[in-house]
């Protein structure tokens, strides 16, 4: 013990100075440590900044799509224009095309401008009509055909304004950019300002964007996601109905019954490779097998669903196998011990216990399939404009349609910036669906997960 208290003799201490004072070498090493740590923090930070930038871009550019500018006009439904024979015969009324309604709108607009007391160089109603969507006449015509008794009266119609006016209300379009635009002149904007002050033009929540159909390239103000949402819905039905039973059956075989042999190995290699095959290759497969070979209808949600099923299967198999594996062997042993067959032990005991995990995996797989675009482009789910609602369940599966991501891609390709806003808005809708699905998956896991 005394040795310890003795002052060291012999070998000279290698360290001079106080222990509390860091040597240059220690300082260097500690600085390197701190730097390394900061690099790591920066990496995480940069990743999070990217995420924030992405979400910010989506929200900032997409939110305006959920409001739309409408104008309320008082249109006099002149009987001599709309029903020349005066007999209110519905077939005669239908003969008047949308062109027949335009003069009525023109007069109504001239009146509205005069009423609001706006001074402008634009006097012709035909030029004023540039402020409205070209679908306005069709909208009024539909109302008249549905209610022929309105003819002869003066009615208030709330019609869409053109995408330029809408853009002005949202700050996307200004007088400067309109100077080079043949569709609307800066002078129109003065009228718009007046009508806004008057209360005739207003920006309101745009339900039609969520439920409506796609419109032609020149009418972005009318375009909506509704039909594409239905297309996605029918596709997801196909994916769910096919991939859940097939995926679960395949996993049960591989996890519970498969013998250790070359065939089993071959299946396993196939599944793990399919999980990594680029999605576009599945699109090629769908095109060649389902359309070229089996002659299924092109662009139909059923083909999209089949293609996405093949793509989702590996994901579902992998997660299902993991949740089957997590059921402890004692459960199986107990079932076998009281005389159940192997099949009974799996279907009566293991599968119900693994169900929450399987459902979670399936929902996540579906969410992945819902956001997938590339395979859909190849089977033609984008060239079509999703302008018609499916007429029924069979038509929903078999008629050409689009899907949410494909619709977004279609809008992003169009030249009009008004469509870019729609594309961002479409992404918000898509992300809301994905978020809901993932939340359900998380809740399922929280609620039913068992730790053994």
């Amino acid at each position: 013990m005394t040795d310890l208290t003795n002052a060291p003799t012999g070998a000279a201490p290698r360290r001079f100075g106080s222990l509390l004072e860091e040597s240059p070498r220690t300082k260097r090493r500690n600085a390197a440590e701190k730097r390394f740590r900061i690099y790591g923090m920066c990496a995480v930070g940069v990743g999070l900044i990217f995420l924030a930038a992405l979400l910010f871009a989506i929200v900032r550019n997409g939110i305006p799509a959920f409001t739309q500018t409408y104008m309320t006009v008082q249109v006099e439904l002149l009987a001599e224009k709309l029903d020349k024979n005066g007999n209110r015969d519905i077939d005669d009324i239908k003969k008047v095309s949308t062109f027949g309604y335009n003069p009525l709108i023109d007069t109504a607009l001239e009146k509205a401008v005069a009423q609001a007391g706006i001074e402008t160089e634009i006097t012709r109603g035909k030029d004023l009509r540039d402020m409205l969507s070209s679908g306005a006449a069709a909208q009024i015509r539909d109302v008249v055909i549905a209610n022929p008794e309105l003819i002869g009266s003066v009615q208030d119609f709330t019609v869409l304004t053109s995408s330029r006016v809408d853009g002005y209300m949202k700050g996307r379009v200004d007088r400067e950019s309109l100077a080079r635009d043949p569709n609307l002149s800066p002078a129109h904007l003065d009228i718009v300002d007046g009508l806004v002050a008057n209360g005739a033009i207003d920006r309101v929540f745009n339900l039609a964007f969520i439920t409506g159909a796609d419109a032609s390239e020149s009418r972005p103000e009318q375009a909506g996601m509704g039909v594409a949402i239905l297309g996605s819905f029918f596709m997801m039905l196909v994916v769910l109905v096919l991939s859940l039973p097939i995926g679960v059956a395949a996993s049960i075989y591989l996890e519970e019954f498969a013998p250790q042999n070359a065939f089993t190995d071959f299946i396993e290699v196939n599944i793990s490779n399919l999980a990594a095959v680029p999605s576009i290759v599945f699109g090629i497969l769908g095109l060649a097998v389902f359309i070229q070979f089996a002659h299924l209808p092109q662009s139909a949600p059923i083909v999209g669903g089949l293609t996405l099923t093949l793509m989702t299967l590996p994901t579902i198999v992998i997660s299902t196998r993991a949740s089957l594996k997590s059921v402890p062997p004692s459960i199986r042993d107990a079932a076998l011990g009281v005389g159940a067959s192997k099949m009974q032990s799996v279907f009566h005991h293991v599968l119900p216990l693994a169900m929450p995990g399987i459902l979670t995996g399936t929902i996540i797989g579906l969410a992945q399939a819902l956001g997938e675009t590339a395979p859909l482009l190849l089977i033609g789910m984008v060239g079509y404009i999703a302008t018609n609602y499916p007429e029924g369940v069979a038509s929903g599966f078999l008629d050409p349609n689009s899907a949410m991501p494909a619709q977004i891609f279609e809008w992003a390709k169009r030249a009009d910036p008004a469509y870019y806003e729609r594309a961002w808005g479409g992404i918000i809708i898509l992300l809301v669906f994905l978020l809901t699905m993932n939340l359900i998956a998380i809740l399922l896991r929280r609620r039913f997960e068992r730790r053994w």
Partner: protein
Amino acid sequence: MPATWILLIVLALSAVGYVMARNKALQSAGGNRRALHSLPSYYGGNAAMAAAAPALFILMGWMILQPIAIDTFVSSNLPAEIRAVPGERSLAMADVRRIADGLDAAVSQGALTMDQSRIIESTETDVRALLGTVGVALGSEVDAATLALAQTYRAATDTGNMWRAVVILLVAFLSFAVAYRMTNKDFRARPFVERAILLLLIAAASVAILTTIGIVFSLIFNTVDFFSRYHAADFFFSTTWEPSFSGRGGDSQLGFLPLIWGTLFISCIALIVAVPLGLFSAIYLSEYASNPVRSIAKPLLEVLAGIPTIVYGLFALLTVGPLLMDVFGRDGVLGVTWMSGGTAAITAGLVMGIMLIPFVSSLSDDIINAVPQALRDGSFGLGATKSETLRQVVLPAALPGIVGAILLAASRAIGETMIVVMGAGAAAALSMNPFEAMTTVTAKIVSQLTGDGEFNSPETLVAFALGITLFVITLGLNVIALWIVRRYREQYE
């Protein structure tokens, strides 16, 4: 009889059979369930399966094989000069099928009676206009020979469908009858049913094999077709990609090199962004971060992996591209004119890099965590700081696994489609300049195949040759990466 009817009849038979067989088994045991070999439901299940399974199996096979057989039969009646050229043949057959379908549609919509549709003549009736009224648009006038073929086609289909109904219903009834006869209290129903279920499970597992076979065959057949129209050497070694858009022009230049160059170049940019960020994130989160930080930052980073690629594509096209233009483009902040358009290799690469960050970080995280604690403790015991331990002990030990993770990320980058379709531009360029528009294998597959129903020109078929190269490259990378990762895991187990 339509297939749906057959299906419904078979299913109804199977449901009735279930009840019948179950009752018979119970009766044979005198109502005493304990005297039965298996539970009563197994007897029912056995009969139900006997009724449905063979019939449905035949139905499926029939529906796949009959069109092929009829196609071969009808196309053997085509004139020899059309039959010899595959493209012409498939076009002629498509016409025949359309007319046949159109006539059927006309009958079902009441525009024609069944007898009228059989004797219709192109000389007397304007078939094209008639079919137009029932919603079947034909590209050209119908000539007598094609119409005759269409009639042959319809007749063959009718005969086939009749035999299909007869054979399948017969099989269903017979096999049900056999199962029903066998049902009595000593019949061992459970093993039968369980074996059948096992077969179903195996069939489901084989879907993975079928998918792979489907991919490989659909790629190979069309690729062979492509190389019979276009020189393989020109495809693999030409440096020009200029497809003619007329569809049948023979002057397309379909060189593969600029596309694979664009693919690799953009993937490289993506990896340069993703690997350091992902790796450092993984290190920080697994070794330095406190628990609350990790539990927030890690799921947030993984959100990046759950966002669909179309979102990244739009982000590249409408946000990152214009932003880069503001910096490197004309009138930009730097005052340089490196960039002439928002869509460029760097736009796509950058955004793809963001997408890959969580991919690299979660894989590396697993791998770093798999390095045994003893190695770290040993290093700390020698007085190394945390970063020295990480750099000199943990990372070298984890290197093979990290290389595997990077290869997996590379294979993802090479196969990524939407970001490059929207962000990278359309011009095929062999260039070293990241600010130039480039295009990739995947983007060209999309642009050559979109909205095209018939595959009879090299311009569309080239997509399959591109697809097979893509498939081989990504598959190769995956196999190597998984092999490395597995080897690495075994090392520490």
